[in-house]
């Protein structure tokens, strides 16, 4: 149905949007049913592709990932309808919606495919459609470059996946998932980590994320960041289900990747002052947190501890949904800001809360959630991973103590730095006074844009408070992933769910206390005078809005502390003479992996291949000669 609505969109965009929303709503129903019930449904059709078979199946793991796909796609479609209105006359919106619906369809197919060829086809379709969506504003050079980076990165990752599936299929004799039972699991695991990690955004394969996500229109960024990168996580989980019992080093590897992605991701986010680039780096960080949870879970399986396994995987899975919710919310909010002010540059914003109250409020909820603070949902998933790590650190199994401690330090550092980053993002953009003229015409966006943001914010709060129930629902998925018996999963979940009831209680208590204190203050101030004045300015005669703290100055103590890692470049024109005329300071933090690894490697490859350029001389006759020679050689080789 998604494909039909895509085609309809070509004709009339609004129709396409409605179709997408309806399709998603319909799709949600069987997903929820499978998730709660645990039964699997499958369908097998004939397909004339060698080694391929149209074999799709919805089990608990797929159903779990289908829910954020459908939910977020519907919400971003509604949002995008109004967001793209600005380009209504100038660009063909229909094509964009066509690709959008194809993207959603391909993601659904990725999750339910059970045949390697079908999976790869869907994966490739996902990459291509998102490429077209990212390059929506292809008149800008930066957008074109970003799209190119994304395409290259995506295909490099797919190459690794191809290798992995070829190895798996050759051994099993067929490309159907349920026949895979491999031997050289270590190599396959590494291939899966690199291939799926590129899509998910593990360091150091993440370089396309900070380029592609800011370049895409905001509803596409929200969808990509919220759901598409989770397809990488899904792929990794699915591969784990047919790789068998994991040795210890898999858990260690994932924990190491999680630590580097998490800490480096949030550090780079701190150094950015483009709002969407900041959010893109935060996606890298949250994928790191998910990887930490997966690593803890794998350690649990290897060391035979049920509690550790359940806690780690439950935390990671819950964080998948949570991140979809709050990252989607934050990107939609950033889109509303960009839509209203025409800029994403934090240093030019300020005071937006007065002009866009609802956007600011939902952005605040997203910011509190992503920093992992109670009573919202971010805290719950991090809490589960913490519990797992603490249990690991408390035990006497030497192999689990070190990683457990590393996870604790990592999560604590990530949490603190995320607080720093989001107070910066929210505070500089929405609070204080406007720092430039861009905000003069800012206004609250329409209901089509506000509605989805409200819905997502509500979701954050609900999951935060209803956490025990939500985690309990994860049981069938956990059985699927960890291959433990349902009873063992049930016991493990009890360890997780019991504290969560207390956390929910604490959340409710917190809200009650807030209400009580607010009431108390209102009573106290009712009989006294309440006046307004200017902010205390220490006697400065002419304070201006430009004298406020800027984003880079807010982050400066931290970026200076971590300077060897960040390598921020500064362009400074010092003020000269006694009454200085003008001076400037610009900072830029390019991506470390990009600068130090990828660019040199690609430049080297470029250099080597440049030597072969003499082959491309443009002479058609010689080209035909090459083809003929190749055919001749092939014939001789095959027959000889």
């Amino acid at each position, binding site marked *: 149905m998604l494909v039909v609505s895509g085609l309809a969109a070509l004709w009339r965009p609004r129709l396409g949007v409605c179709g997408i929303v309806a399709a998603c709503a319909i799709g949600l129903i069987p997903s929820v049913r499978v998730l709660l019930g645990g039964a699997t449904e499958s369908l097998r059709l004939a397909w004339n592709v060698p080694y391929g078979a149209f074999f799709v199946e919805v089990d608990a793991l797929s159903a779990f990932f289908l829910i954020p796909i459908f939910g977020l796609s519907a919400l971003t479609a509604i949002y995008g309808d109004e967001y793209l209105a600005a380009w209504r006359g100038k660009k063909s919106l229909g094509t964009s919606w066509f690709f959008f619906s194809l993207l959603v369809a391909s993601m659904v197919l990725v999750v339910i495919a059970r045949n390697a060829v079908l999976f790869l086809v869907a994966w490739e379709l996902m990459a291509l459609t998102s490429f077209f969506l990212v390059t929506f504003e292809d008149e800008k050079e930066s957008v074109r470059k970003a799209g190119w980076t994304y395409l290259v990165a995506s295909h490099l990752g797919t190459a690794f996946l191809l290798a992995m599936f070829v190895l798996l299929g050759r051994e099993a004799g067929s490309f159907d998932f349920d026949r895979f039972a491999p031997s050289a699991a270590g190599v396959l695991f590494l291939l899966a980590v690199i291939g799926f990690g590129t899509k998910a955004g593990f360091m150091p394969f993440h370089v396309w994320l900070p380029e592609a996500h800011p370049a895409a229109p905001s509803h596409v960024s929200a969808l990509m960041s919220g759901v598409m990168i989770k397809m990488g996580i899904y792929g990794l989980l699915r591969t784990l289900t047919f790789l068998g019992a994991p040795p210890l080093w898999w858990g260690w590897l994932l924990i190491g990747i999680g630590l580097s992605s998490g800490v480096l991701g949030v550090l780079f986010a701190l150094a950015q002052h483009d709002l969407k680039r900041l959010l893109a780096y935060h996606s890298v960080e949250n994928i790191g947190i998910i990887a930490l949870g997966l690593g803890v879970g794998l350690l649990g399986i290897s060391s035979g501890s049920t509690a550790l396994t359940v806690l780690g995987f439950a935390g990671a899975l819950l964080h998948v949904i949570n991140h979809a919710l709050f990252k989607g919310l934050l990107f939609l909010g950033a889109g509303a800001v960009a839509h209203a002010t025409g800029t994403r540059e934090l240093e030019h914003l300020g*005071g937006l809360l*007065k002009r866009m109250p609802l956007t600011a409020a939902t952005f605040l909820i997203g910011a509190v959630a992503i920093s*992992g*603070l*109670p009573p919202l949902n971010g*805290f719950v998933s991090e*809490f589960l991973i*913490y*519990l797992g790590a*603490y*249990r690991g*650190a*408390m035990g006497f199994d030497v192999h689990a*103590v070190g990683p457990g401690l590393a996870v*604790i*330090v990592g999560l*604590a550092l990530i*949490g*603190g730095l995320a*607080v*720093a980053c*989001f*107070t*910066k993002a929210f*505070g500089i953009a929405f*609070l*204080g*006074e406007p720092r430039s003229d861009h905000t003069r015409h800012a206004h609250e966006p329409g209901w089509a844009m506000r509605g989805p943001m409200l819905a997502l914010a509500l979701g954050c709060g609900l999951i935060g408070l209803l956490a025990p129930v939500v985690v309990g629902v994860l049981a069938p998925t956990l059985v699927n992933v960890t291959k433990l018996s349902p009873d063992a999963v049930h016991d493990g979940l009890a360890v997780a769910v019991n*504290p969560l009831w207390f*956390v929910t*209680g*604490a959340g409710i*208590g*917190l809200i009650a*206390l807030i209400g009580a*204190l*607010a009431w*108390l*203050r209102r009573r*106290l*101030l009712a009989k*006294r*005078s*309440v*006046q*307004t*004045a*200017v*902010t*205390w300015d*220490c006697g400065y005669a002419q*304070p201006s*809005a430009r004298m*406020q*703290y800027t984003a880079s*100055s*807010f982050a400066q*103590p*931290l970026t200076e*502390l971590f300077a060897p890692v960040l390598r921020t470049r500064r362009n400074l024109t010092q003020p000269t003479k006694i009454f200085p005329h003008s001076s400037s300071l610009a900072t830029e933090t390019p991506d470390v992996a990009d600068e130090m690894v990828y660019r040199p490697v690609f430049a080297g490859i470029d250099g080597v291949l440049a030597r072969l350029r003499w082959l491309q001389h443009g002479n058609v006759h010689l080209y035909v000669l090459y083809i003929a020679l190749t055919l001749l050689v092939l014939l001789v080789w095959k027959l000889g």
Partner: protein
Amino acid sequence: MNPAPFIQPLLALLRAGLALALSPLLLGVINRTKASFAGRNGQPLLQSYYDLWKLLHKGAVYSRTTTWVFRAGPIIGLAAVLAATTLVPLGGLPSTVSFSGDLVLFAYLLGLTRFFTVIAALDTGSSFEGMGASREVTFSALAEPALLLGLAALARQSGSLSLSSIYSSLSFDAWLEVGPMLALVVAALMVVLLAENARIPVDDPNTHLELTMIHEVMVLDHSGPDLAFILYNAALKLWVLSALLAGLIIPIRSGNPWLDGGACLLGMLVIAIIIGIIESSMARLRLLRVPQLLVGASALAVVALILSLR
């Protein structure tokens, strides 16, 4: 009606009430100690109570730049610290609410307070508050691992993940057994206490020079009941962290709740005096040195954990 099952929760609630009532007294003790070191008589011990009373009865002045975020900051901050108070045990006696993993909730509730204090500061649009906010987030990002690692060492020692069970198993024998490790945790937690409560050597609560302050400058624009909430917030945070430290230093677990509780309260008074002594005898560290101190605290906690691995 058998009153026995009600007694324990009731006593725990009473202990929480003790925290609410006595926490401003700790501030008074610190100030009196500093005054006596300086050769003055100093403020009355109950000065903080008088301050709270005065502020609650005043009106408020709000800046025109601020929004509801500014008005919400002190309230949410105080609510979070109040919730954290219910999680903290008094010496060997359990807290009002305890469950496995409550140490993580404790640390993150303090984080919630910090988040809202910082954005309330940014809401004023003044560069002074921005300065304090930016330093505050830097230092607390480094202090949080130290807190969680110190608590991890204690959790490992006692084999439980709930603050109350951890502290009730920290008896004198524990000190005899793993004294060095516990001493390291005490050092780490002391640094965290000084950092979180904005005491010398991390911050100076007495100067009102914007360039040198961290906490004090963030709350510069608050007035009236908001300032009272913030003052009480500071008192409660001091109480909560010193209770954790005192429970560790005074390992009297006799089984008699009055003796244990009284010993812990005495320990907290001693800690307040020690803080006063530290404040009088040291100068504030250069801002570049504070991260080194905090990372040092984390390093000590890690060494404690490494030692406990043998």
